[in-house]
């Protein structure tokens, strides 16, 4: 697992209080990991802070799964 992927997963485990094993690439934040709309906003903000990037709202809307988050951040870095 890449460094980015492991850091993304650590944030998700911390913020959503889920088990690490559940945080797989295809897992959806809302459908699989129990996030509500505010949790999702908080996750995006944590990614921005952790990786020192800006994720515009219109692009944040397309980040719905763990894999999409990792891909986005890998491209943005």
């Amino acid at each position, binding site marked *: 697992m890449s460094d980015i992927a492991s850091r993304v997963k650590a944030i998700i485990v911390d913020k959503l209080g889920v088990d690490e094993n559940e945080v797989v690439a295809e897992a959806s934040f809302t459908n699989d990991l129990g996030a509500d709309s505010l949790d999702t906003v908080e996750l995006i903000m944590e990614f*921005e802070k952790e990786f020192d990037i800006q994720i515009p709202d219109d692009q944040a809307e397309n980040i719905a799964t763990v894999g999409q988050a990792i891909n986005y951040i890998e491209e943005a870095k």
Partner: protein
Amino acid sequence: MQLKRVVVTGLGALTPIGNNIDEYWEALKNGKSGCAPITYFDSEKFKTKFACELKNYNPEDYFDRKEARKLDRFAQYALVSSDEAIKDSNMDLDKVDKFRVGVIWGAGIGGLETFQNEVLNFAAGDGTPRFNPFFIPKMIADIAPGNISIKHGFMGPNYTTVSACASSANAMIDALNYIRLGHCDIIVTGGSEAAVTIAGMGGFNAMHALSTRNESPETASRPFDATRDGFVLGEGAGALVLEEYEHAKARGAKIYAEVVGGGMSSDAYHMTAPHPDGIGVVKVMENCLRDAGLKPEDVDAINTHGTSTPLGDVAELKAITQIFGEHAPDININSTKSMTGHLLGAAGAIEAIASLLSMKYGIVPPTINHTTVDENIDPKLNLTLNKAQKREVNVAMSNTFGFGGHNACVLFKKIS
């Protein structure tokens, strides 16, 4: 229209002297102080370095980590105490009509720590607003009853009353009124506060409202004592289940007492100072007695607002003498704030609970830390000094007054 009768069928408490009703009562009757040096933050530069914090409270004992993170402490305390009260009431959550169950809560401030930390975080940055999406919903004062209803599915009236230190007394009075008008069967009421934070301590210190007896925190809250020098900030919550009498009887509920009346008034005088003639304070007790249909001589005990401030304590006792006249010396007057400190928006709730427990056990908890007689106080009054007194309490009054001149008073009577 015939008003319905309203009774108390459940109690819950999370206080600086006990984390549930049984612990709270043990501490009350034994005159235990909940005051100690502040542990939540470094208070070295603060004028007051002590407070009545909760003891051994771990959010993890009540919430999972994700849940706790979304709740300011004042909302956590609300959930913990209301859970105890709901359980104590023994109501069957599958049987009650949840559209007729409300939650009316009191909070003087709300999520002060959340507000403080979010602003500090912003101030430490480069000006980019990176506020947490949970900032507002965690902080707002109405989120406490919101969360209680979400947890239990109560779909009746739901809001928070804000009148500083009178908040939870106002909540109880609103609850009383909705039930006696027939709008609800049950209302979970009470109040919570969590203001022992740098902003809370700093703010109250700036007003010169707090005791600065740093050399002896446990004796700092000393209502009615000549050497009192301000109140002691406390935190926690109290919860009461109020229920329509016939509804409670029909399900065989345990009944603590009847809520027979509520009184409200305003000083219309000053932002923080009590009216020198105590007009508002006299009025609130008169209003309450009239609402309850009781005479002054019916009252056995008064849990005063008695915060341990130089002006407020004397004004309140003068008002009691004025209203109760020759009967005043026969009343067991006390201030449980001598033990709990001042829980602001939760004060009315935990003090009403103290009154209800006095009625249940026939013991009036003491006003502790009294050492020096204040010559401005009528010596004939029984202030229940330093030691609990046995007393059959049939009617108990609980007073609370808030910054802004808000006065609220509640009367309880044993069901005969």
